[in-house]
C-alpha cells in the first residue's frame, strides 16, 4: 500500500466533490464521492485499510463542511470498516460486484450519517428527504465505483508490482 498515493487520491476526490459534483443536485440531494472512497477501500483492502481511508476521506471532507469536525470521519470510518468485514468472503470475479457494494455501502452510509447527525443535534433529517439522498448517492456511486476501484488499486500497488499497467488492475 502506498500511503502517499492514497492521500493524493483523497485530495483529488475532495477537489472533485467540492468543485464539480456538489454543483449537481436532485431534490436537494447531492452526490457524495468521499463515502465512495471509504466503501471501495473497505471492499478492496479489508476492514483495517477501509477504516483508515474512510477516516482520511471523512476528516478531509469535514474541514470544508460546516457540520461538526469529526462527523464525517466517524461515519466514514465505520462504513469503511463495515464494508471490509461484510465483504470479506465475497466472490469478487463479477464485474458488477464493485458497483453493487458501492451502492449498498453508500446507501447505508447516508442513513448512518443522517442518524448520527440527528443524535448530535444537527439538522440532517430536516433537509432533503433521506430517500432521495440515499437513491441519488447510491446510484451515482454505483456508476463511479469501477474508476474509484481502479484508482485505489493504483494506491494499493507496491513498488514491486508497479510494472502492471494501471487499467489492467
Amino acid at each position, binding site marked *: 500500500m502506498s500511503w502517499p498515493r492514497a492521500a493524493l487520491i483523497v485530495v483529488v476526490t475532495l477537489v472533485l466533490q467540492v468543485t464539480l459534483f456538489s454543483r*449537481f443536485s436532485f431534490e436537494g440531494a*447531492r452526490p457524495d464521492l468521499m463515502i465512495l472512497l471509504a466503501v471501495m477501500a473497505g471492499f478492496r483492502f*479489508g476492514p483495517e485499510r477501509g477504516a483508515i481511508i474512510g*477516516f482520511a476521506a471523512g476528516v478531509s471532507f469535514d474541514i470544508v463542511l460546516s457540520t461538526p469536525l469529526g462527523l464525517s470521519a466517524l461515519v466514514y470510518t465505520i462504513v469503511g470498516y463495515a464494508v471490509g468485514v461484510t465483504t470479506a468472503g465475497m466472490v469478487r470475479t463479477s464485474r458488477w460486484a464493485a458497483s453493487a457494494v458501492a451502492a449498498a455501502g453508500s446507501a447505508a452510509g447516508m442513513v448512518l450519517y443522517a442518524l448520527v447527525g440527528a443524535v448530535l443535534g444537527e439538522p440532517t433529517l430536516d*433537509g432533503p428527504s433521506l430517500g432521495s439522498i440515499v437513491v441519488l448517492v447510491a446510484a451515482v456511486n454505483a456508476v463511479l465505483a469501477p474508476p474509484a476501484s481502479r484508482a485505489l488499486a493504483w494506491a494499493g500497488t507496491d513498488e514491486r508490482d508497479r510494472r502492471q499497467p494501471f487499467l489492467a488492475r
Partner: protein
Amino acid sequence: MAYSRRSSRTPRTRFTLALLLLTAVSLLVLDLPGTGPLDPVRNGLSTVFSPLRAAGNAVFEPLSNGWKGAFGYDDLQDENEKLKAQLEERKSEEADVKRLQQKVADLSKINGVTIEQQKTKVAEVVSGPLNSFEQTIQIDAGSSDGVKKGMAVITGRTTGKGGAVLGRVAEVRSGTSTVELITQVDLTIGVRTQKGDIGTATGQGQGKPLLIENIDEQTLRKGDFLWTSGIDRTAFPGDLYVGRITKVGKSVDGVPRVVEAEPAADLTSRYVRVVLKDPPK
C-alpha cells in the same frame, strides 16, 4: 477482477478501528457548538485547500455550465442573475410601502426617531451546499471586508435599499464566509408585522416555511408582511424584509395556532449583501 485481501477482524484491526473512532469522537467533542478550539485549525486547513478549490472551480465551472446550457449561456445566466437580484429588491418595495405607512403613523406620535440606515457589502455566492446534509453557502467576502460572525445577509446586488433576509454569517475567514440560510433549523430571528406586533421566525429546514412564534396570533392574517424587529440584542438590524404569512392555523382548545411564513429571499441568489452591523456580544 480478483483482489488480494490481507487483514480481516484481527486484534490489530480492532485496535486501529478503536483508535480512529476515538480520534473522530474527540474531534466531535472539541468542535461542539460554542467551544470552537478547533476553528483556527479548520480555517487554516481550509485556507491551504483554497488554491486547489479555486483551480478546481476554474476547471469545472465551464463543465457544469455546459451541462446546463449551450454557447452563450454564461452571458444569459449573468443577465438572469442581475434580473433576479433586481426582482428580489423590487419584491420588497411593496412590503416597504406598508412598513413606511406604519412608521409614519408611529413617528407622528414620537419626535426625534429616525429610520436606521446600514452599510452593506455586496458579495457573490461562490459555493452552495457541499453535500446533501449541509444548509449553508459560501460567499466571497470575509474578515478583510469587515464581515463578522453573526452579521445579517440579504439578497440583492445594489448598494441601495431592497432585498430580503437570506441568512446569517456563521463562519468568517479572511476572504470568504459561510452563511446559514434563513430556513436552517434553529435559526431564529426577531420579526415584526405591519401592525407592530413582535415575535420570532424560526427555520424548519430546507424547502419548508418559517414557523412564527411568540406573537399574538389573533391579529395575524394570511398575506401579512414580516420585517426584522431590530429589538435589543438581536443579530439583525430592524426593518429588513423577511417574508409573508402563508398560513394561520385554527386554534383548538387553547393551543396556540400554527403560523407559518414563506421567506421572501431567493435562496439560490448569486449575489448577496452582508449588512455591516456588529452583532450583539
